[in-house]
């Protein structure tokens, strides 16, 4: 346990560098700073995400959690600093090299972001149609399997507008897993869901993590969800890292905000 956030940040950064030398992390943020207008949303953020397991980024609303996640898949570019996916510097890529890196990743959006002009099944089939040479029948079969894995096997032909919030999230998860990604990024899996549905989504993510061996990165401000999903937790406040460790370590952190967050029972 560290005495101050700054010291912890420095030590955490050093530990990250050391660990990145020992084994290649799945993701790495290297001194990333991002401004929106005059507001600094990320302030010299450095950390890595170990390959495999669950990594949870948490913090109050507006602290830069989702912005961090968007940097990881190249939807945002840092004003300064670098972002790595494996050995690829995604923050410096564009065109087909960027697409090649993204094919190894899945992203579950907060709103699920299903394409509302095509059916649920076609949403799940979409990445396969774009990036594989599978035949139509095989793609449909695989899409049905992905939907069955999230309990939506009966909803293949439904339009996204006909689904409830929880079903949309599950369909979004099926689409994110369509290409069996090595890294799954999840933005607020509990947002807008009741506690039971939220737990179901978390259960699916835990299963995926156990079975697939993929790296799971989750942004949430729901502590129950964070404890279920995170082998490691990282807490942001005003664009800076204020804590990192296991849930148990953070339960006993010296920072009042971290402890207050860890003991909260926010249901999302």
């Amino acid at each position, binding site marked *: 346990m560290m005495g101050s956030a700054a010291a912890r940040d420095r030590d955490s950064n050093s530990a990250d560098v050391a660990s990145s030398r020992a084994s290649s992390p799945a993701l790495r943020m290297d001194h990333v700073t991002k401004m929106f207008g005059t507001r600094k949303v990320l302030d010299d953020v450095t950390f890595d995400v170990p390959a495999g397991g669950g990594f949870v980024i948490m913090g109050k609303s507006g602290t830069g959690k989702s912005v961090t996640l*968007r940097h990881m*898949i*190249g*939807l945002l570019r840092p004003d300064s600093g670098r972002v790595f996916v494996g050995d690829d510097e995604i923050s410096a890529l564009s*065109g087909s090299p*960027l*697409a*090649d890196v*993204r*094919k190894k*990743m*899945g*992203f579950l*959006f*907060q*709103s699920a*972001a*299903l*394409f*509302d002009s095509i059916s649920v099944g076609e949403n799940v089939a*979409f*990445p396969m149609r*774009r*990036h594989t040479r599978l035949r139509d029948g095989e793609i449909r079969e695989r899409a049905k399997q992905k939907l069955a894995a999230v309990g939506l096997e009966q909803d293949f032909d439904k339009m996204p507008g006909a689904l409830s919030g929880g079903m949309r999230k599950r369909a979004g998860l099926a*689409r994110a897993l369509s290409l069996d990604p090595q890294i799954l990024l999840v933005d607020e899996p509990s947002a807008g869901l009741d506690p039971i549905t939220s737990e179901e989504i978390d259960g699916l993510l835990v299963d995926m993590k156990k079975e697939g061996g993929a790296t799971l990165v989750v942004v949430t401000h729901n502590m129950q969800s964070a404890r279920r999903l995170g082998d490691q937790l990282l807490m942001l406040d005003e664009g800076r890292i204020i804590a990192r460790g296991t849930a148990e370590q953070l339960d006993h952190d010296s920072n009042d905000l971290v402890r207050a967050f860890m003991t909260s029972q926010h249901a999302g």
Partner: protein
Amino acid sequence: MPAAATSFLAGVGDAALFAFKAMRLVWTPPFEVGETVRQVYELGFRSAPLIAISGVAVGVVLSMHTRASLERFGAESMIPAGLAIALVRETGPLTAGLLLSGRIGAGIGAELGAMRVTEQIDALEASAVDAFRYLVVTRVIACVIALPILTTVMNFAGMFGGFLAEMTATGMPFHLYMKRAFSLVEVTDYVPATVKTMVFGFIIATTASYLGFNTESGTEGVGRASTKAVVLSSILIIVTNVLLVRMIFFIFPETAGG
């Protein structure tokens, strides 16, 4: 320079870069053939009823006005030819352009705007798909293909409307009307005027796509993008039309008369 002026100029520059990017990507692979065909159907084929019905109505009205004018000079026999030239050279292309800036411009602005605010454009990018190429370039190509075809539909629908008006007024048979209508229309009347609607298509698609792609502020922003798409593309079509007509007169001096 005042902040509003700087912001306006920055917006114009940004939109111009957007349009240049669209123009450049039209010619470079990968080509989104399936999505382009779908957009030709959605934006082009499904606009045909609007264009055909409007064309007939415009033809009827133009014919009635032309009759009122030419009757004074005893030149009623020139009504079909006068109407055909007016339609082919200006009324058809401009009316089709403005009608389609309403239907297609509003549609693209609203659709892309809604996709932006519901993160569907980000979802495309996250799925390793170039959203600009998939959403914008396909619509630009579809509009550039569809506008000349729909303009031709409008021209013929207008002539049919003119025939209906003439048949009602004088009982003129169809074959005679069409013979007189095409008696003075030259290739140089039809081709340049119809080709210029490809520019209208480009204007509609890029303006609406730019506004939709850059939508902010939730559903209110979607409404604003849709409205702005219609207003801006209509104004740009009218202004560009002046330049294009001037250019056509320069390249084909015979069309300028005199």
